């Protein structure tokens, strides 16, 4: 039945399109956020306190203010300074900073998980500072951080549902539009939830398995 009042192929395709937007936002946010998070995290692990504390304080703001408020603030600030950026770009930027804040903590925890003695041993064996970071700290820290980073990525994907409030048509917004048209909220929302679940569940299981396996290796 495709008379426009039932849930059919057309509606499903629309929702998948929305899911595509959700994934695009997640991709850019996680890419930008991870790069920034890596830099912030490493800086926070090695820098003296007078760099570490202010940087930590600023990053903490992104974790202490609701994402919705951050989105609205940046979006209205963009209009105030007359910047011509689309809601999509604003969403990606805000989510990227949000991601970087959490990512920097993950990176920091990873670096701190490498025992000082291991690093001293590496240096005594003649490795340079950068070799130590690259060959010793990075592999161990990666193992500690990867499961949390995967969790963060999924978290960002779920949090990206908020961006419709500033006008991006992603999965949840698409569902809402379809609901108002065909008046089948439970059905449409179930499909929407299923799409989120299918995107999120396999990766969350993988993360949990990696975490368990690497814990057993220790």
């Amino acid at each position: 039945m495709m008379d426009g009042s039932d849930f059919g192929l057309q509606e499903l395709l629309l929702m998948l399109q929305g899911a595509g937007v959700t994934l695009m936002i997640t991709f850019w946010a996680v890419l930008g956020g991870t790069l920034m998070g890596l830099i912030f995290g490493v800086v926070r692990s090695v820098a003296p306190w007078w760099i570490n504390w202010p940087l930590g304080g600023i990053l903490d703001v992104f974790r202490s203010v609701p994402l919705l408020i951050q989105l609205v603030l940046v979006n209205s600030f963009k209009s105030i300074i007359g910047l011509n950026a689309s809601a999509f770009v604003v969403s990606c930027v805000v989510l990227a900073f949000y991601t970087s804040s959490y990512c920097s903590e993950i990176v920091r925890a990873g670096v701190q998980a490498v025992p000082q003695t291991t690093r001293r041993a590496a240096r005594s064996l003649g490795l340079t500072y950068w070799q130590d970071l690259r060959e010793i700290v990075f592999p161990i820290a990666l193992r500690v951080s990867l499961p949390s980073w995967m969790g963060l990525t999924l978290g960002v994907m779920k949090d990206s549902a908020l961006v419709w409030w500033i006008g991006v048509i992603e999965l949840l917004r698409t569902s809402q539009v379809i609901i108002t048209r065909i008046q089948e909220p439970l059905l449409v929302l179930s499909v929407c939830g299923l799409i989120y679940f299918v995107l999120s569940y396999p990766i969350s299981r993988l993360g949990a398995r990696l975490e368990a396996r690497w814990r057993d290796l220790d």
Partner: protein
Amino acid sequence: MNYTFHWYQAFRALPEMLWGALITIEVAVLSMVIGIAFGVLLALGRNSKNKLLYGLSTAWVEGARNTPALFQIYMAYFGLGSFGLFVDSFPALLIGISFNNAGYLAETFRGGLRAVPQTQMNAARSLGMSAPMAFRLIVLPQLFRTVFHPLMNQMVWAILMTSLGVIVGVNTDLSGVTQELNVRTFRTFEYFAMAAVIYYLITKLITISARIAASRLFRY
């Protein structure tokens, strides 16, 4: 840049916003209480050998953890209507956040239960303690210690999540009040900047008092 900030106007709305902040804290605390209660039940269900209990609690936990919180609020607001349960925006917000909290806390509690080895219970029992006594004196304090920090984190999350209520039309919490002021005056930046500061202070208040409480409670 031809925009003049009107901070004075925004400051005059401060009392109104602080009342909203109170509602925000109330919703968050209430959702935590409900979340803890259901979280404990779900943790027990996930450890249960009963297939039905295990299945139901697993579905809840995985559903809560693998879909957006806003989706869960939508489910309460739009979805429950299909069962003839028409919920207002405020209860929908509370149901959504509580559902989410319970899902995350269930895993916290399950991890906490695992962290106390069975041998300690055996030792306590062989020292002559009764099972409830051993649970209360040996298991519970250690359980509390491991779940304390995740619990406080979840509390901060609950505060942040309450802001989603405005999307389904809640107009009494901090975000809702801010949005009402915004619609009336179109001073979006000023009002939301003030809301951001208030949210920041609330979350800081929670994390700092949690840190003080932890240093008092877990001295040994």
